């Protein structure tokens, strides 16, 4: 479980996040939704320590993270997997080396064990015989799957996904969504997914937080999101004519 309390942050005098609190439950896919520029990625980066919030605290199963130094954060980071928007695979390393890398840094596994673990993770994301390929030789969907494989290679307790479906076709998006959902439930991971894809919201959203202009305006389940009376959330969820018609029918 991850709990954030009163997170606020500003850049160059501009308020990006205002007093956001939320509890992200373990074994659930917790979604952060909101329009582009609403502060979702900044919030996630505050949670993992890539940004330091001006105010507020982040608790990983009761351990306060935001005020620790680099070495102290390192012990918690061993339990974190993160899927970046563009995959963030290391260009100079092959697929197998990318997956083995965090194992080499964070564990004392032998080379054989690391290779076995890499193969297991690749199989888990339905990718095989790509071990020696380089990121430049992979499609967008394959890159995302390799990035997921790398994120789960260290058996994380906390999984962060920043727009896992961006740039992917609808079918591949569903594959990635299902993969995240399965992994979350299978390993009881606390998963946090940033998205503005409503298909993803309806497919995998166990708990949802809606951010608008840096403030949390709504939280609830995917069932509740369809019947919300929050005007900003209605504008966000029912942005297309198709979705507006669905709302009218309901």
């Amino acid at each position, binding site marked *: 479980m991850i709990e954030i309390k009163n997170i606020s942050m500003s850049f160059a005098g501009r308020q990006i996040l205002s007093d956001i609190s939320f509890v992200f439950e373990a074994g659930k896919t917790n979604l952060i939704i909101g329009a582009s520029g609403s502060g979702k990625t900044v919030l996630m*980066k505050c949670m*993992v*320590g*890539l940004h330091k919030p001006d105010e507020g605290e982040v608790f990983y199963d009761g351990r306060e993270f935001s005020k620790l130094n*680099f070495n102290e*954060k*390192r012990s918690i*980071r*061993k339990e*974190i997997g*993160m899927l*970046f*928007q*563009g995959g*963030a*695979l*290391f*260009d100079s390393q092959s697929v197998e080396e990318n997956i083995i*890398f*965090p194992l*080499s*840094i*964070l564990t004392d596994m032998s080379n054989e064990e690391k290779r076995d673990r890499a193969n297991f993770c690749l199989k888990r994301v339905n990718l095989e015989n790509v071990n020696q390929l380089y990121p430049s030789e992979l499609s967008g969907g394959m890159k995302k799957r390799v990035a997921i494989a790398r994120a789960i290679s*260290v058996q994380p307790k906390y999984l962060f996904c920043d727009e896992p479906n961006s740039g992917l076709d609808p079918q591949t998006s569903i594959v990635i969504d299902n993969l995240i959902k399965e992994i979350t439930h299978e390993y009881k991971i606390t998963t946090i997914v940033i998205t503005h894809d409503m298909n993803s919201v309806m497919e995998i959203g166990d708990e949802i937080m809606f951010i608008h202009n840096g403030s949390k305006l709504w939280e609830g389940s995917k069932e509740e999101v369809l019947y919300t009376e929050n005007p900003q959330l209605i504008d966000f969820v029912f942005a297309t004519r198709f979705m507006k018609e669905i709302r009218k029918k309901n």
Partner: protein
Amino acid sequence: MSLFFHLGRYFLLMGRVFTRPEKFRIYWKRVFEEINSLGLGSLGIVSIISVFMGAVITLQAAYNLDGPWIPLYAVGLGTRDGIILEFSPTIISLVLAGKIGSSIASEIGTMRVTEQIDALEIMGVNPSGYLIFPKIIAAVFINPFLIIYSMFLGISGGYAFGVLTGSVTPYEFVYGIQWQFKPFYIVYALIKTVVFAFIITSISAYHGFYTHGGALEVGQSSTKAVVYSSIVILLFNFILTQLLLT
């Protein structure tokens, strides 16, 4: 103000670069990769420039030292001192600032804008140490060999072209390069080389590491890396010459 900001941030970054690595084994592997990439990858350009610059220095020396009171071995002497004292350590370092400096800044800058550095940090890796430390160690180790190689090729090029064009006889040239040779000149050149190698890698890495934005900013960082490392090399060339040769 901006100068002090960058100086402060540069020294803070260097402080993080030289902290204890997470796993020495991984760092050493990276050092050898960097030696291959930064050092051996520069052999071609260093060879071509050294041979032709050695030839030109010899021909210009022969042209300018043409007179009844000037012995012909002065051509070899001028070539030797020009190459050992200035051309190989300084000019080749400036060339390397262009070649490996831009490469380092664009590599690290691209990693920054594609969130690869964030990914390292999430994994509990000190990204500045992991990315920059091996490059600095590799360059400081391999550049002196490159410079010695450049000296050898420069003097050989001068000899070959000087003799082929009839500007100097083999005996006079060899006599000139041996005449009153001071081994300290080599030490001086190597001290400069090590300092310049540190300047090139650390300044270029600094500009790459603090890149923000996209492809345009990566290009700008690369340009800044070359410009600032070249300026600092010239500044330290003056300082070291003043300290070591006077």
